[in-house]
Structure formats: structure tokens, C-alpha cells
């Protein structure tokens, strides 16, 4: 029973995450998008082009970094999946190198983002900090995204759910980096491998040895890979479905129009959906 547990857990993870990803895709790209039609949001955004306004457009460097980071994350996910599910001939060694190189670049990106958030001229860490006002707005934001309300509370550049998602993404990157390093068994310092340094001494005795600890950490690493895929699926939907102009700007396809007074209107803290039957003058742009 115990012996087969490792195989059972791995197979269950494969099955559950595939189903979960399909469900998430359907929930967002079919159900959520579908509900936006009778609620009028689809028409407002995609037909009348009433996209959210912005009083600021991201500079070139963050945009490039986002694009580059996205590419590296895709390579990491692809090569990681290949290592577990090899789907073409002769790719083991090349895909491992792809994984290692992308990992290093993503790691550098992470540290660059920390520098950008805390030490650069932009110093935008506050944009990701969740305060009392954010927490107070959580129910309102959730109600907006679930179509229970047409008003989206606006507290800062990012709403509280965005902040939570981005902060979660950062935490997942740290966890993924550490679990990834813990999979390396090559001698590193004084003949000791990263696995032994990171997990061997504490997790090993708990689960039956360092190699066994590696097996369980690989399970966590694999699960996090799926969580990245799922979170990114939602991110793609929301980025394109909620704020297409900003997405196009991020990929350099169409420059974002900046309105200095974007957030200074009658409802300072709320972004209400403009009714479909609103007069033309009230429409955006």
C-alpha cells in the first residue's frame, strides 16, 4: 500500500490538474464570457470599445521585461512538462538545458522586479501592498467579477484581487524556485547537492530519506507548475477580456491612450459600468 502511494499520488495529480485546467478554461472563456453578453459588458467593451481608462502607461522596460518573462515562463512550463511527459524524440538533454537557462533568467527577472519595486525610480511596491481599503473593497470587486454588481471599487492602480493574484504569483515563484533547486542532485558545495542542503536534513528524516524527500518535492514542483498554468490562463482571460488596450500596449501592438483624469470623475472610488443605453457623451473615448 505504502509502496504504491507515490504512483497513486502522481497519477491523481496528472488527472486532477488536467481536469482543473479544462474547468478553469471553460468557466472563464465560456461561462464568464457568455454571461457578459446578457449583462451588457460584452457589448460595452467589444462593440462600443468602452475599455478601462488609464492615467499612466507602462514604460518600455517593464513591458519588455513582461514579454521576456512571459516567454521564459512558457519555456519553463513547456520544458518542465516535457521532462515529465516526453513527447518527442531526443529532447531530454536539450529540454533540460532550456529549463535551466529559462530558470536562471526568470530568477534574474524576479530579483530585477524586486529592485524595480523597492529601489528604482518607479518604486511601485505600494501598488502591490494590500491595505485595509483593499480588503474592504474585496467583496465589491468579487461581486463585480461575478456579475453581482456593475460597480468595480477603485482603490489603487490594481484592484485587490489583482494584487492578491500578483502577490501570489511572486510567492509561487519563490516556492517554485526553491523546489526546483531541491531537485538538483549534483554536488554543489563540499560535495553536497542542493537537494541535501535544502531539504535533505529536515524533510528527509520525515519521509524516509533524502531521495524520498526529493520525490515529494518533485510532486510539489509539478503541482506548482500546473498552478502557474491555471493562474496564467485566468490572467490571459482577464487581461484580454477586461482590459484589451492595456494588453495590446504590453505587447507593443497598439499604444495605450493615457487620460490624466481617468480616475477623477464623479465616482472617485467606483468604476461603474456605463449602461448600454447611456448617451453617447457619457461613453469612454
Amino acid at each position, binding site marked *: 500500500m*505504502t*509502496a*504504491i*502511494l*507515490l*504512483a*497513486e499520488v*502522481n*497519477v*491523481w495529480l*496528472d*488527472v*486532477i490538474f488536467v*481536469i482543473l485546467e479544462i474547468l478553469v478554461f471553460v468557466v472563464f472563456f465560456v461561462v464568464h464570457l457568455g454571461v457578459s453578453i446578457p449583462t451588457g459588458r460584452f457589448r460595452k467593451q467589444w462593440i462600443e470599445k468602452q475599455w478601462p481608462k488609464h492615467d499612466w502607461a507602462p514604460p518600455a522596460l517593464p513591458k519588455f521585461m513582461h514579454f521576456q518573462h512571459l516567454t521564459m515562463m512558457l519555456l519553463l512550463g513547456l520544458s518542465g512538462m516535457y*521532462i*515529465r*511527459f*516526453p*513527447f*518527442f*524524440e*531526443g*529532447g*531530454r*538533454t536539450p529540454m533540460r538545458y532550456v529549463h535551466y537557462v529559462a530558470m536562471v533568467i526568470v530568477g534574474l527577472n524576479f530579483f530585477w522586479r524586486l529592485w524595480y519595486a523597492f529601489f528604482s525610480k518607479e518604486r511601485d511596491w505600494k501598488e502591490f501592498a494590500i491595505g485595509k481599503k483593499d480588503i474592504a473593497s474585496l467583496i465589491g470587486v468579487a461581486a463585480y467579477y461575478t456579475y453581482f454588481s456593475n460597480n468595480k471599487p477603485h482603490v489603487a492602480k490594481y484592484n485587490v484581487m489583482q494584487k492578491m493574484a500578483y502577490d501570489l504569483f511572486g510567492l509561487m515563484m519563490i516556492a517554485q524556485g526553491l523546489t526546483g533547486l531541491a531537485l538538483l*542532485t549534483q554536488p554543489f558545495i563540499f*560535495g*553536497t*547537492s542542493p*537537494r*541535501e542542503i535544502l531539504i*535533505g536534513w529536515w524533510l*528527509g528524516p520525515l519521509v*524516509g*530519506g*533524502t*531521495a*524520498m524527500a526529493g*520525490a515529494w518535492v518533485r510532486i510539489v514542483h509539478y503541482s506548482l507548475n500546473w498552478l502557474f498554468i491555471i493562474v496564467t490562463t485566468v490572467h490571459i482571460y482577464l487581461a484580454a477580456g477586461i482590459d484589451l488596450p492595456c494588453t495590446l500596449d504590453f505587447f507593443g501592438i497598439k499604444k495605450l491612450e493615457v487620460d490624466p483624469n481617468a480616475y477623477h470623475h464623479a465616482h472617485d472610488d467606483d468604476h461603474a459600468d456605463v449602461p448600454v443605453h447611456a448617451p453617447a457623451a457619457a461613453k469612454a473615448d
Partner: protein
Amino acid sequence: MRTRLTIAAVLAALMLAVAPGVANGAQATTSTAMPSATATRSISSTAPYALDFTLPTESKAGCMVCHGDENLTRLKAGKTVTFYIDGDAYAKSIHATTLCVGCHLDFAYTAPHDGTTQWQTTAKLSCKNCHDKQFLAFGQGVHRRAVDATGAAAIEEAKKPLCGDCHGSHDIMQITDSPAGKAALHKKGYEICGRCHQEYWDSYDDYYHGAAYKMGAEDAPACWDCHGYHDILASSEPASLVNATHLVETCGSGDCHDQHGTATDKFIQDAAQMIHGKRAVREANPLVVFFSRIFDGIGSLFGG
């Protein structure tokens, strides 16, 4: 009759022409075209070649006069069987300087050589004459043949592989100190083991061993990396490398799971279960079963 004698004379002349080079120890090269003669198919055992020739020397070049011809085929039970030997592959093999009769010990210098297939067994076993150490190990393994078997048991014994069944024949490469030979051998898991042990070949598809191996991963283990080779034993045998009592030792050897002795008995037992067991676990997974039935049902609606 006169025509046949003429052919015999031409063949003999060709053999004499190529024999001295071999006799002097010259190796065949890829740039040298193999002499060939138009193949003549044996009519039947009652009307064989009238050609009873005697080779001028026991040279492979002499044999290659006929066997270097790609058209040297024979119709056997409705199937075309080739007797062509790729001279280039042979010249690159580890046995390039070995004479044909060094392995074909029972060659009788007649054509067609023999109506039986005993020559195959002889050739496949001839390795023992030089590789006695390996043959002795083979005699300790599960593939050894019981010499006293009779009836149905003898038929089963005859199905067991001989040296040549696993190692191949004319194109066999050097393995010792030869990365190319090792790499070529490493890829042949199906040819060597899988085609007989199909069930185990199919179940060898766990994430990091079997699936990777089948996709050409150089560092994924081939069958014999775990199970051993010449003296291979069934896993139930206590002396088998994959017997539960030896798994830590086997999996922890070499560059595999030898992480300073950290590959514990528990880890090895769990991982070993997955190597040939993951397929069964997946097929028994209730969600996989559920969705398989749904997809099968949908497929049957469309005539699948």
C-alpha cells in the same frame, strides 16, 4: 550445364581475385565496391544449384561475392528472405577482420548451403568460442537452455534467445570503450528485450525512466541497466538484480540514485513500484476509467 559451369568459373575467378587482399590482413573499406554476381534463386530442394564450389580461401570476400548482392533473396513459405550482408556495416563492425567461417562454423562450401536452419543456431552461438566469460555468465541466467528438454518443453527452450538474437550479427559494434557502440546498444531496448517481453516493454512508461527511454533519453536506463544481461534472472530469484532485496544496491549504483547513500530502501521500493506499475495505476484510476468510458461512448456514436 555448360552455362552453370561458366558461372562457376567466373565465381571462382572473382574469389581468387579478392582473396589475396584478405589473406594479407587487409580490411574491407567502405569505398571499395563489393564484387557481386547476379543472384540465382534456388528452385527447390529437389532441384538445387548444380554448383558445388570450393572456395579458394576461407575468406569473407569470397562469401561476399554472392552475399554482397542486395538481390540475394529466397522465397520461403511465400516470404522473400534476404541473404544480403551489408558490406559497409560489416566493415565498420567490431568483427570486421573476422572471417565469415569464424562464426559460420558449419559452412559446408556448397550452395545452397543447407536446407535446415541449424546454421543460424550455430552462428548465434559461435560467440562463445571467443567470448567464453560472457557465455559462462549466460549459462547462469534465465535464458540458458535446458539441453535435456523434450517435446513441448524443448520447443519452449528453443524460443530462448542466443547471443546473436540480442547482440545482432554482422553489424555488431564495439561496446567496451566505445561511446558510439554504447549509444547504439542503449537504443535497442525493444529489439533486444521488448519484442519478446512485450508486456514489460509496454508497462515501462513511468515518467522519468520508461517514457524518457522510449523517447531516446541518453541517461534513462535501458532494460539491462536494471535487470542485468548475460546472467539475467527473473525478479523472483533472490540473486536477481531487481529482486526486492537488491533494489537499493541496483538503483543506487553508477550515476543513477547514488546520492551519497541517500537512496533509501523506502524510496527505492516506492520508485520501483512506479517503473512498471504506473501504467496499471493510471488505468485503474476511477476518473481515468470514467472519462475513458465517456470518450469511448462518444467514439462509438461516430462509429469508432
